């Protein structure tokens, strides 16, 4: 129990196998994100037309809307094609950007070649507890019908089922 409980539990892990070579898996994931990211999850008022990951450590990660407006999602913390990429995630649970690094979680995606034509992905979204502090802000001020309340209702349904 040396590590704080919050740090240990604030992690979501996913694994996935795709039937494409590692280079392609990495490329589609990082350089063609707009083609697959669920259109319902974005922060601009309009739907995004593309999602850009600048291919370097320190690069930006942002969405661009039809009118050309850009909304930040986070930063590229590590860029090791085609094996590993780490992002900071500055989107709060209501899909608002928060520039404070203290409130940003981290997403790490690791790619492993499973033969020439298959790739295994391991995704780790960690430090989720850093978004925990935003609950109160949302509750206190900026709550909206489509925002936190709706998400919490989904949570409630999810945890009840």
């Amino acid at each position, binding site marked *: 129990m040396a590590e*704080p*409980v*919050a740090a240990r*539990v*604030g*992690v*979501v892990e*996913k694994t*996935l196998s*795709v*039937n*494409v070579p590692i280079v*392609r*898996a990495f490329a*589609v*994931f990082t350089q*063609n994100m*707009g*083609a*697959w*990211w*669920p*259109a319902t*999850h974005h922060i601009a008022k309009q*739907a*995004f*037309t593309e999602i850009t990951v600048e291919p370097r450590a320190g690069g930006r990660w942002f969405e661009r809307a*039809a009118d050309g407006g850009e909304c930040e999602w986070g930063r590229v913390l590590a860029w090791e094609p085609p094996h590993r990429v780490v992002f900071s995630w500055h989107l709060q*649970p209501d899909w608002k950007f928060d520039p404070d690094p203290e409130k940003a*979680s981290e997403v790490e995606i690791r790619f492993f070649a499973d033969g020439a034509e298959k790739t295994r*992905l391991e*995704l780790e*979204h960690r430090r*989720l*507890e*850093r*978004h*925990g*502090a935003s*609950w*109160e*802000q949302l*509750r*206190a001020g900026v709550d909206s019908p489509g925002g936190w309340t709706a*998400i*919490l209702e*989904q*949570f*409630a349904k*999810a*945890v*009840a089922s």
Partner: protein
Amino acid sequence: MQTYVQAGLEALGDATRFAILQMLARRPLAVSELAETLPVSRPAVSQHLRVLKDARLVSDRKAGTKRIYEVNPEGIALLREHFDKLWEQALTAFKMAAEKNKEAEHGRTGGSKSRRRRKNTKR
């Protein structure tokens, strides 16, 4: 569970409790440590902790003579649920896109433009 979420919402409606949870999200702390940093009395801190504990956002344990408070994993479970669902959906879509990409390349000569999403035309 519904009650738990409602209690959670009420517990969060206070600026001091907000500050307490922020501090505990960084590391577990004793009441005295919280009271030293916050501009409220120690009994007031205890009162807030009780509300947070009743809402199951924090839990406590005994360490020697002290009582240590920490963020309750169950509270964080809500956030995990949110992100878990998000990635489930996103990765499923990613797999489809990656494998579709490959088919298009192997199975056709030219016509790569047709793969492009028509998201822009929506609405």
